[in-house]
């Protein structure tokens, strides 16, 4: 008897001829993410991936916790693989699922038989196993419509697999299958959620953070590390670039009209981020903007920001309410970190009365007062690299 994890890869099954590529990518991701727990062996059979620890003392609880956050998995379950002898199957089902069965009042057995040479047919397996378990756990009753627990018995080529409840996976597509993009992250509630959502669609994340000491503190940057560490539990490790932004912000303050500070600043950020993207071969930017949330996120303001972007800007939160964003941030456990009260680069020099309908012409005139290009180039060059591991 050995314990394994059975993984169902939802959307991937629809991928036709590319399916194998996606599966390989998923397996590679899982291998990497499970490395702290131990070495795992993966086998693919009939749209199910079986993950099995190579060393016996591997902590499967931790493995399951990790797997539940890997994108590209629709559902999974912990199972035991046993030899295809019916008595062995019954005995193991009784022992392995004792915890669940003791905690339930009602149950049913479901059987799948892909090995048609197995002497019992699926309904027979259900009937026999049901009777056996009723006998062993007299407190139980059978309920085929709404059972507390379903005992699954799958007879496959090499082994019979026994498992209880199926757990919902993180969904989405395997990280990396959609290419690489850069997340602009400040430390608020939105950007980590935006990163999570794009990673879910298979994008490999890098991150760009703008630090403006002394206006922002070391704590603010640590907060970003903590946020990304949390996102990395889903997306895999993230390369973070911390851009020294103080001088640029000071020059904006010195040379540009106050009502347009934020939009100019965002355009500067986009330019630096694009430089980093070009260098790091990332094909898009990701931001946590949502229409109308603040003055720099009105449609005209977003138009001004987009005007200097040469690569796509993904804004997965664009149509979401704050409540909806918060709900996701609580789910991925970034909320409590996000609300720590440190100044971030976006709240430095916030104008009292920002322009909500800036025109591109107005913004470009404001920027023309100072030659920002050399500063921007330097900032991208001086960006500090930090690798955020998914631990």
């Amino acid at each position, binding site marked *: 008897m050995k314990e394994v994890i059975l993984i169902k890869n939802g959307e991937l099954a629809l991928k036709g001829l590319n399916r194998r590529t996606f599966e390989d990518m998923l397996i590679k991701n899982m291998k990497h993410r499970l490395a702290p727990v131990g070495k795992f062996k993966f086998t693919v059979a009939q749209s199910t991936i079986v993950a099995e620890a190579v060393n016996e003392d591997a*902590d499967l*609880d*931790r493995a399951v916790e990790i797997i539940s956050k890997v994108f590209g998995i629709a559902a999974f379950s912990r199972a035991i693989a046993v030899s295809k002898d019916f008595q062995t199957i019954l005995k193991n089902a009784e022992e392995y699922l004792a*915890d669940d069965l*003791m*905690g*339930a*009042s009602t149950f049913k057995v479901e059987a799948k038989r892909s090995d048609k040479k197995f002497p019992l047919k699926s309904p027979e397996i259900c009937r026999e196993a049901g009777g056996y378990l009723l006998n062993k756990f007299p*407190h139980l009753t059978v309920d085929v419509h709404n059972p*507390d627990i379903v005992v699954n018995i799958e007879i496959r080529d090499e082994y019979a697999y026994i498992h209880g409840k199926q757990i919902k996976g993180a969904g989405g597509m395997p990280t990396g299958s959609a290419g690489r993009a850069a997340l602009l992250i400040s430390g608020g509630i939105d950007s980590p959620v935006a990163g999570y959502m794009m990673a879910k669609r298979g994008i490999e994340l890098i991150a760009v953070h703008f630090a403006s000491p002394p206006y922002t*503190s*070391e*704590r603010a940057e*640590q907060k970003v590390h903590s946020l990304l560490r949390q996102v990395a539990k889903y997306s895999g490790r993230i390369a973070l670039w911390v851009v020294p932004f103080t001088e640029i912000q000071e020059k904006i303050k010195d040379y540009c009209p106050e009502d347009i500070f934020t939009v100019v600043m965002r355009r500067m950020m986009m330019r630096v981020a694009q430089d980093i993207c070009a260098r790091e071969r990332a094909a898009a930017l990701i931001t946590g903007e949502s229409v109308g949330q603040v003055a720099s996120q009105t449609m005209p303001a977003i138009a001004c920001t987009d005007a200097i972007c040469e690569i796509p800007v993904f804004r997965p939160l664009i149509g979401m309410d704050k409540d909806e964003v918060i709900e996701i941030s609580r789910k991925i*456990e970034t909320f*409590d970190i996000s609300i720590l009260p*440190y100044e971030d680069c976006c709240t430095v020099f916030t104008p009292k009365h920002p322009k909500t309908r800036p025109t591109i012409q107005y913004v470009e005139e404001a920027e023309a007062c100072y030659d920002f290009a050399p500063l921007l180039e330097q900032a991208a060059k001086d960006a500090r690299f930090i690798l955020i591991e998914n631990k």
Partner: protein
Amino acid sequence: MQAYFDNSATTKPCPEAVEAVAYAMSENWGNPSSLHFIGNKANELLEESRRAVADVLSCTSGEIFFTSGGTESNNLAITGAAYRNKRFGKRIVTTSVEHPSSDEILTKLEGEGFEVIRLKVNSEGKVNEQDLFEAVTQDTILVTMMLVNNEVGSIMPVQSIKRAVARAKSPALIHCDAVQAFGKMPVKPTQLGVDLLTISSHKIHGPKGVGALYIRKGVKINPRAFGGEQEMKIRPGTEAMPAIAGFGAAAKALPDVKKELADATEKRDYMVAELEKIGGVEFNSPKDALPFVTNISVMGIKSEPLLNYLSARGVCVSSGSACSKGKKSRVLTEMGLSHERMESPIRISFSRYTTKEEIDYLIDCIKNAKNDIRAIK
């Protein structure tokens, strides 16, 4: 010669813990909430300590909340869960042999209108699983049970609680007082199926005055103290950094628990065999008790004179638990021991530092005590 056999009361701090306490008082003494570099450095030490403790429990560091020790953790868990959950019911299920830091707060809650069901233990100091299943009802809001009994070392069926709660479809939170088990046997909250779990530093060779409460991710309880934002407002107040750093260091210094458990079992079995040779010694701990705790009665000699006699010879043991000295043991009473055995219980508790030489010396002293103390009488 000195021989310390009272490790269930407290343990000798390990060098790593001593060093960490000194470091947090001499070099890294900042307030973790301060935003300057000295504060940042203290905050790093705080989080590093939290991770070290979390690693031992195989949980995430966000699930560890530092407190002043086992008593506070038990109080916080029990009141926090009871008040949080009171809209679902008033029924709390526990055992009749809990540590006073659980039992007394439960008595207080009883006074406030909560109904507390105390499950009896059998002659082995354990509750019966069937009783547990019957006691947990749909309006039960909290089940609290110790993992290892502090007086006799019996291991309780904590793992069955979640089965009972699931079967009853009860909203109950599950709390486990794991003070005596932590660091001595594998303790994994997820495997035990508990929502809240109490641990203490000074039972694992760390400093006194610090412990922790594990609160499973997503579980909410009410705080008991109010003030700052520390420990996510569950336990406000400037963090006791020297103690916390010492706790973290002691957690990090814990050796492989499974191996220690095997070692302790071997030492315990050796001691039991030697004690049996003396004759007139009854074993109050069950055979499958945690090997770090052995409760015996040396028949005919009352606990206190034996304790004094051993102490005069450099041997430290305890009569029952250190927390209720002098009183008749509730646990042994519950186990239904004979009057004679109840007169003379002695608790011998090991640590990873306990040696065979110490055990031999203890055996010699008990042998002599049997002659000498009778002679006095």
